């Protein structure tokens, strides 16, 4: 590779030099999302000569993306973003390896994908993915370059770096679903993700080169209307990181959409439960609990053994779950949804409500 022409302007910086260029060329960086943030990140990382770049995005280019997603043109509309980005970046720099994953990042593919890279850059646009990315970075021990935007403001940080804090140390719980709108709902000015994504790319380069100060343990807020930066220090919360590590063996069972409230707990009344036709009823109480609800002929599996008894339950038929009062049945729904059951609901008030409804009906 002819380092001296392509990378000349950065190699003559004394902090980088040919040594630095070799480090960049040996690095492997995974970019989650090739959208508003991902485009500038990918453009500058490719330009700088990051040797291996992974791009994961399931989405396709739309005309409304073009005002900010600078890698794409009108001929890319309808093409998968990871593929369209690779086409542009291969022209920008044919000397690097670009691996594309035109699919959704999930609990199934995240750990393997992350393990193959040195640094993970989050350019996603929703909380489910952000928590998934954070947890997978903790489990695989990879630094996470975080960026996120809202209207005219942006946030940047580096998590999980040098024993520093993670995203969960800053925001342990996702906000209630629907309270934080997305760019497609409220709009975004094109240059903002350009600025925030460029900050993310800069953090990646500093980490690889070992120069300057990395933005770990800090959250940077940028307001593009007032052109003000504010930086806040964040402490590592060991319990947050430990609880993610504790769930590592069952990471693939996590349901981040449910955690972030994107999927709702479906709750029905006792009356609705009786009106259902062609469904399976599941009683998750212990065998000694009364009243029994024999009229619904429920399958009996106590909550504690549910995970081992799933073969008794069909995914084809809707599944109505109840317990004594409606607490355990909610937990059962979480377990079921982790195992891919989608047509599920639980009965508000549980067996007590079911029994009451039937008694009043008879009277």
């Amino acid at each position: 590779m002819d380092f001296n022409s392509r990378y000349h302007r950065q190699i003559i910086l004394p902090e980088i030099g040919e040594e630095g260029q070799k480090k960049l060329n040996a690095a492997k960086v995974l970019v989650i999302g090739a959208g508003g943030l991902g485009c500038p990140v990918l453009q500058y990382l490719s330009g700088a000569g990051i040797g291996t770049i992974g791009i994961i995005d399931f989405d396709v280019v739309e005309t409304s993306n073009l005002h900010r997603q600078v890698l794409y043109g009108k001929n890319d509309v309808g093409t998968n973003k990871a593929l369209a980005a690779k086409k542009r970046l291969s022209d920008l720099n044919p000397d690097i390896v670009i691996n594309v994953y035109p699919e959704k990042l999930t609990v199934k593919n995240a750990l393997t994908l992350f393990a193959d890279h040195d640094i993970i850059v989050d350019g996603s646009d929703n909380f489910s993915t952000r928590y998934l990315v954070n947890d997978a970075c903790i489990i695989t021990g990879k630094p996470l370059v975080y960026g996120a935007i809202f209207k005219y403001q942006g946030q940047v940080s580096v998590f999980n770096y040098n024993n520093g804090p993670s995203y969960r140390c800053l925001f342990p719980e996702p906000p209630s679903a629907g309270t934080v709108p997305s760019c497609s709902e409220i709009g975004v000015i094109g240059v903002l993700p350009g600025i925030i994504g460029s900050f993310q790319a800069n953090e990646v380069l500093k980490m690889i080169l070992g120069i300057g100060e990395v933005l770990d343990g800090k959250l940077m807020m940028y307001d593009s209307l007032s052109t003000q930066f504010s930086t806040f220090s964040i402490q590592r919360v060991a319990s947050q990181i430990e609880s993610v590590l504790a769930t590592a063996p069952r990471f693939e069972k996590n349901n981040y959409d449910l955690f972030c409230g994107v999927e709702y707990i479906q709750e029905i009344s006792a009356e609705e439960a009786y009106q259902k036709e062609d469904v399976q009823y599941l009683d998750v109480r212990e065998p000694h609990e009364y009243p029994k609800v024999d009229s619904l002929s429920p399958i009996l599996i106590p909550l504690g053994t549910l995970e081992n008894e799933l073969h008794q339950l069909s995914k084809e038929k809707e599944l109505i779950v109840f317990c004594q009062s409606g607490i355990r049945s909610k937990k059962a729904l979480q377990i079921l949804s982790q195992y891919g059951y989608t047509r599920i609901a639980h009965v508000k008030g549980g067996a007590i409500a079911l029994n009451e409804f039937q008694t009043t009906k008879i009277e």
Partner: protein
Amino acid sequence: MQLTIKYFGMIAEATTMPEEQLQIEHCSVSELLEKLKIAHPKLNHMDFKVAVDQQLVQENYTITKEAEIALLPPFAGG
């Protein structure tokens, strides 16, 4: 003591101002938030973290002197 309260993102939309000044006696962060939620009821339904003088703090943290408080919401957009 005088506090400067800075609002970010959708918090600033809920309070309809980017910042305000408040004259208040020594108080914990949660006591301060109670006051702010009375003045700006929409804050009751919002998720955010609090920083005192650019340090993220827990709600039991006591503010004892003039300080700059920031209410920081999570952003999702990309």
